[in-house]
């Protein structure tokens, strides 16, 4: 099967620091790919490379066989790659609905069309009741969902979710997991960064593990759970002395 997105030998240096070092993997159409790793492993940097905020120091990113690693974020988004931010970036002084309208305009010719898409997406993410709330006043859980709603409104083929579950309470967590599954059922491919192991193991088809900017493992959740390298990266080496 042809991959939807392929990351090929990507390295990203900040001065002397290698945030990513020779990372390669691919995302297949229709799957949920989990991206995990300890803090500072380079997960968000990788998203920033795929999304176009950073131009990789070495290597390339291909989306549907087109090289996208030299394009600007807005171009990459219009090709069909949307993302959310770990540190949420709502358009603060706009209402929830206006936030989503602003991104729905990407694929809408008229305002009425944008409003329709936005309303539909808000219903899908369970934010319809909050449509007229100024997004600054939204609680964190809903702001995280607004990020997802906004990304969805651009009608992406691939969506990059950066810790959309962090800081949620258990009921919000279940809602969000359901939303992710619903997104996949719509035929949208998902790449997700998550620290919540239970969640990532439950929803991912495959998992890529990063540590110190390098890809140390790739496989099904079961394989990853049993991988000694991953266990070492997360828990440290057993001290037998």
């Amino acid at each position, binding site marked *: 099967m042809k991959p939807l997105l392929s990351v090929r030998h990507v390295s990203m240096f900040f001065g002397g620091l290698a945030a990513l070092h020779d990372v390669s993997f691919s995302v297949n159409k229709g799957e949920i790919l989990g991206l995990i790793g300890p803090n500072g492993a380079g997960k968000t940097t990788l998203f920033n490379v795929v*999304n176009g*905020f950073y131009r990789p120091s070495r290597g390339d990113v291909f989306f549907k066989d087109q090289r996208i690693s030299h394009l*600007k*974020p*807005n*171009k990459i*988004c*219009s090709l069909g790659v*949307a*993302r959310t*931010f770990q540190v949420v*970036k*709502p*358009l*603060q*002084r*706009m209402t929830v609905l*206006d936030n989503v*309208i*602003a*991104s729905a*305009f*990407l694929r809408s010719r008229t*305002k009425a069309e*944008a409003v329709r898409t936005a309303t539909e997406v808000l219903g899908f993410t369970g934010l319809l009741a909050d449509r007229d709330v100024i997004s600054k006043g939204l609680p964190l859980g809903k702001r995280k969902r607004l990020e997802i709603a*906004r*990304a969805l409104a*651009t009608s992406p083929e691939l969506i990059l979710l950066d810790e959309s579950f962090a800081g949620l309470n258990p009921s919000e967590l279940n809602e969000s997991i359901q939303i992710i599954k619903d997104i996949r059922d719509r035929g949208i491919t998902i790449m997700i960064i998550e620290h919540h192991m239970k969640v990532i193991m439950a929803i991912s088809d495959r998992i890529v593990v990063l540590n110190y900017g390098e890809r140390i493992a790739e496989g099904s959740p079961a394989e990853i759970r049993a991988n000694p390298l991953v266990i070492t990266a997360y828990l440290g080496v057993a001290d037998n002395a």
Partner: protein
Amino acid sequence: MGQMKRYAPLAILGLLAILPLVGLSTYALHILIMVIMWSVIGMAWNLLGGYCGQVSFGHAAFFGVGAYTAGIVYSKGGASAWWGMPLSIVFVSAFAMVIGFICLRLRGPFFALATLAIGVILRVTAENLTGLTDGDLGIMIRERTWVEKTWYFYVILILAAITFYLVKKVIESRLGYYFVAVREDQDAAESLGINTTLYKTIALCLSAVFTGLAGAFYTNYMGYIDPKVVFALHDISIVTIMIVMIGGVATFWGPVIGSVIMVLLAEVIRSIPKLGAAHHTFFGILLIVIIIFLPNGIMGDMPKLRRILRMGKSS
């Protein structure tokens, strides 16, 4: 209420249009013309600074280029200075595009500083490019089109009406959503597929064109321009910002309310003996008061103002 709001602009326009018929004094008409001209500049600035969030300290540059387009068309081209109005659209938007290419890659305070510099650079250029601008001598329009001010009033009123209408249309459209998205978070906007550089340039060009039109009108109306007046930092660039700040940033009526207050205040203060020369001091104090008590301006803090007024009444 909603109906009232919808027709308020038309009602005000109609009211203003019949005002000269009731026989205003020349002075009153002059003040009115100044208020309306400043409203145009304020609305134009608001588009870029208020909605798109790119705060410009150099709108005098666009005002001046518009004014000098009209002046040079007359002095060098031998045509009516009124041709300056359509021509300024071409020149000012071309100029704004160059400025945008240089300055819009800067964010926040750096953009503000760059525009501040552009305004000053233009003034110095106009002072020294004597072959074109006659430098400090300025340009004098010898044949006034009308002796009466009435027709000048209608010209600027029509320009203001067009500006108001277009700003409203733009803000309610895709452009408006993109401008505000850029203001709120450029990175988020960019990742939502918004070409931030493009839309910032559009906001800058639109804003510059209306400011330039006001400048071209100014040349025709005043009949004399020189670099120190039309490229003035404090009397044009800063006053523009104050008008919008006082009236209410990112509101439709803010720039209009702000112009009324600023123009009247300037007239009142200037007429006070001895203190008149210090009108900038008063502007400064006013700005500080506004920032502390009404940070969103009069229109933006309307609910707060209403509350304060009601409290005053009940006690």
